[in-house]
């Protein structure tokens, strides 16, 4: 039990003393998750919009696949991406294995289904009359699309937060693709796994608390954003 107490103290010390190893892990974590979230939003929001807004053959099947992929296990994504970006894999020439962009690429695949499915649901659940109203007001196709996304913005924001939560908390991909390399690809979660592996439980808990604080900050920012609606 005393791990928890000493872990909490350690967390405070690490954060406020500016421990370089801890901050390197925090920065790497933020770097990777920001890259992967940006990429998954850029692909996922338009994708989710198309899936939720238009009617086309195969739509339901794509939806089912996307919903199934919500349960994608991180180690499976890790293994799959490893096979592609290993130097002997088809994308081996890019040298992505054991690098930050490599991890971000795999995480993008992990969180993309979350963004797609939640955005599609958000667009679907909008009032159907919105479209009619917009047409009556003389909006063109592009304006209709933009306005629809704008109406669904809070639900889309929720999708982004959910995806972000999944990205910063996963360990399987970061470990397999990143390799937990000190000063380079060591993230908070892989550092926790390492410290546990070394039997330094208090340090592991301290890093866990650091990660929770990060999540708290992100959510606090979002709450403020929502208030401003």
């Amino acid at each position: 039990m005393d791990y928890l107490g000493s872990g909490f103290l350690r967390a405070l010390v690490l954060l406020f003393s500016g421990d370089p190893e801890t901050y390197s892990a925090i920065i790497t974590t933020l770097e990777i998750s920001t890259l992967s979230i940006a990429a998954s939003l850029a692909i996922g929001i338009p994708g989710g919009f198309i899936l939720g807004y238009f009617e086309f053959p195969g739509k339901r099947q794509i939806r089912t696949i996307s919903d199934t992929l919500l349960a994608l296990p991180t180690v499976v994504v890790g293994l799959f991406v490893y096979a592609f970006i290993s130097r002997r894999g088809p994308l081996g020439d890019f040298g992505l294995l054991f690098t930050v962009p490599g991890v971000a690429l795999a995480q993008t695949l992990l969180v993309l289904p979350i963004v797609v499915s939640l955005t599609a649901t958000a667009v679907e659940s909008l009032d159907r009359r919105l479209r009619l109203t917009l047409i009556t007001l003389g909006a063109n196709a592009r304006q209709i699309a933009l306005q629809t996304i704008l109406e669904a913005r809070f639900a889309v924001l929720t999708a982004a937060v959910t995806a972000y939560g999944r990205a910063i908390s996963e360990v399987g991909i970061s470990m397999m693709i990143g390799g937990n390399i000190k000063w380079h690809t060591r993230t908070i979660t892989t550092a926790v796994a390492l410290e546990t592996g070394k039997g330094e439980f208090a340090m592991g808990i301290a890093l866990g608390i650091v990660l929770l604080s990060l999540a708290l900050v992100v959510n606090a920012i979002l709450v403020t954003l929502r208030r401003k609606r």
Partner: protein
Amino acid sequence: MKRKNILTLGLSLLCLLFLFSGAVTAADRVLMMATTTSTDNTGLLNDLGPMFKADTGIELKWVAVGTGNALELGKNCDVDVLLVHAPATEMKYVADGYGVDRREIMFNDFIFVGPKGDPAGVKGKSVKESLTIFASKKIPFASRGDNSGTHKMEISLWKDAGIPLPDKETWYIQTGQGMINTINIAAERDAYTLTDRGTFIKYEANWKGNPPLEILVEGDAALKNQYSVIAVNPKRCEKAKYDLATKFSQWMASPKIQKAIADFKLMGKQLFFPNAAK
């Protein structure tokens, strides 16, 4: 119009990704190593890495995995050099053309640890006698079960003792985890386990010198644990940095670093014994 926008955005993001990766690979004085958990968990590499950088200007990056996994990373050309400890497997690895220039660097030894008070009564016995006691009395025994160097050693010890591997026995706990985790599991389950001495000293240090497990079997000639450096074969892997790997191998065998390895201590105890050929 919209679709075009998406396409441009997606493409520019991809470019960004590759730009990042380009920045990483551009620094080609980086040596990528796959190594076993014991060299990392004990903190040895945290000392040696910066020294290597200071001496040669080459940055050493490493991933710490089981020896089996490390060899596999070498086979896939994902690393340049290996620091591993499973001599028999390594020889075959070199013979099969995956690695070259195997060089012995240092050793420590494996030990059997078990609950304080030694309920099975194996203290001071030989490896063969101890394993026979574990198997006949069905004493809980924690095995790495992860194809690591330690796991390979354990399998060969059972084989040498003439006991079939107790794979499905209820008293045989296969953790599938790293060494310290396996020691922790052994402590929780009152089990015995095989560990390298370095990791156990680290474990003792975590418990401030008063751990729930103690060393019971040691000193048997069968328990030597040899660590070697192997360069990934540049003929198979064109991108492997063979020159840097060679430099690392020579550096590890140099008198200065051999002494640094001998001087690496935890709680006043030496963890690794250098034995590179002069």
